[in-house]
């Protein structure tokens, strides 16, 4: 694979540059983990204070869309991991097709999420805009849906950024591959997988509680 534009003067070698990129994205992901960590913390505190309301509110989320979206994200992550492997094996065109597949799945995720938001609006589950819930649990359910909308919309913004980054890389890969682009793709892939892992935790905390009718 060609060296492309090579490496900046602060690096001793291409390998040094790629190691710095990988460590750099992990440092960034640590800060991202704390961003979502604050949301998780708030979730656990309010759930502890309102267990029945959180279970009841959770039953109002759309388990079918939530489960489908989880499968979609897992599959998109699989495609991105394959794209990295394909590029390293010199299969540039296959890599681009895998990236396009991952982006389409990302867009499908976002459109299903938008459908879900619309459904929740019609069911009067949007705090601050139109919210009504069976009286004894209304306050706790409003807390649940506030956290739900903040967490899932921040997650959706991450998805949009991820799709844009993958698109930019797919366009740059059209002509030729380079070790620099390969390192960039590995970095973008780590971000994509991280956003996928965050969704898995959100899915368990948002959609699954209260399903057994307890």
């Amino acid at each position, binding site marked *: 694979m060609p060296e492309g534009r090579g490496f900046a003067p602060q690096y001793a070698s291409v390998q040094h540059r790629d190691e710095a990129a990988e460590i750099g994205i992990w440092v960034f992901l640590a800060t991202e983990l704390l961003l979502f*960590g604050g949301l998780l*913390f708030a979730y656990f505190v309010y759930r502890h204070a309102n267990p029945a309301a959180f279970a009841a509110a959770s039953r109002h989320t759309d388990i079918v869309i939530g489960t489908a979206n*989880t499968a979609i994200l897992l599959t998109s992550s699989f495609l991105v*991991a*394959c794209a990295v492997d394909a590029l390293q094996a010199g299969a540039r065109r296959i890599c681009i097709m895998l990236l396009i597949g991952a982006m389409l799945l990302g867009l499908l995720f976002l459109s299903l999420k938008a459908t879900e938001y619309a459904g929740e609006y019609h069911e009067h589950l949007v705090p601050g805009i139109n919210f009504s819930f069976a009286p004894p649990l209304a306050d706790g359910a409003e807390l649940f849906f506030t956290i739900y909308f903040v967490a899932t919309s921040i997650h959706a913004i991450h998805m949009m950024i991820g799709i844009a980054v993958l698109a930019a890389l797919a366009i740059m890969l059209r002509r030729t591959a380079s070790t620099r682009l390969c390192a960039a793709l590995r970095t973008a892939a780590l971000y994509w997988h991280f956003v*996928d892992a965050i969704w898995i935790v959100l899915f368990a*905390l948002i959609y699954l509680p209260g399903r057994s009718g307890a």
Partner: protein
Amino acid sequence: MMGWRPPLVLVASWLGLLALLALTVTLAYLPFGSLNSTVAIVIAAIKAAIIAAFFMELWDRGPRLLIFAGAGLFWLGLLLWLGLMDFITRAPA
């Protein structure tokens, strides 16, 4: 170039993740009482670990990168552990 095939470890991870998703949704509907949320969180953690190990390739990375990757989890652990300590252990008034 057309000889590229998806690595077995990625295919196995993907199928395993989908199986765990089916398992966690099924178990969520069974009446385990307060164990339901523990089961959901444990399965989510296993899925995240599979992603970190195989999709994010941490399984064959050196100790330096593992320290950087683990730092975020360590800080998150401090936040949740110390933050929730009082809520979890305080007896109902």
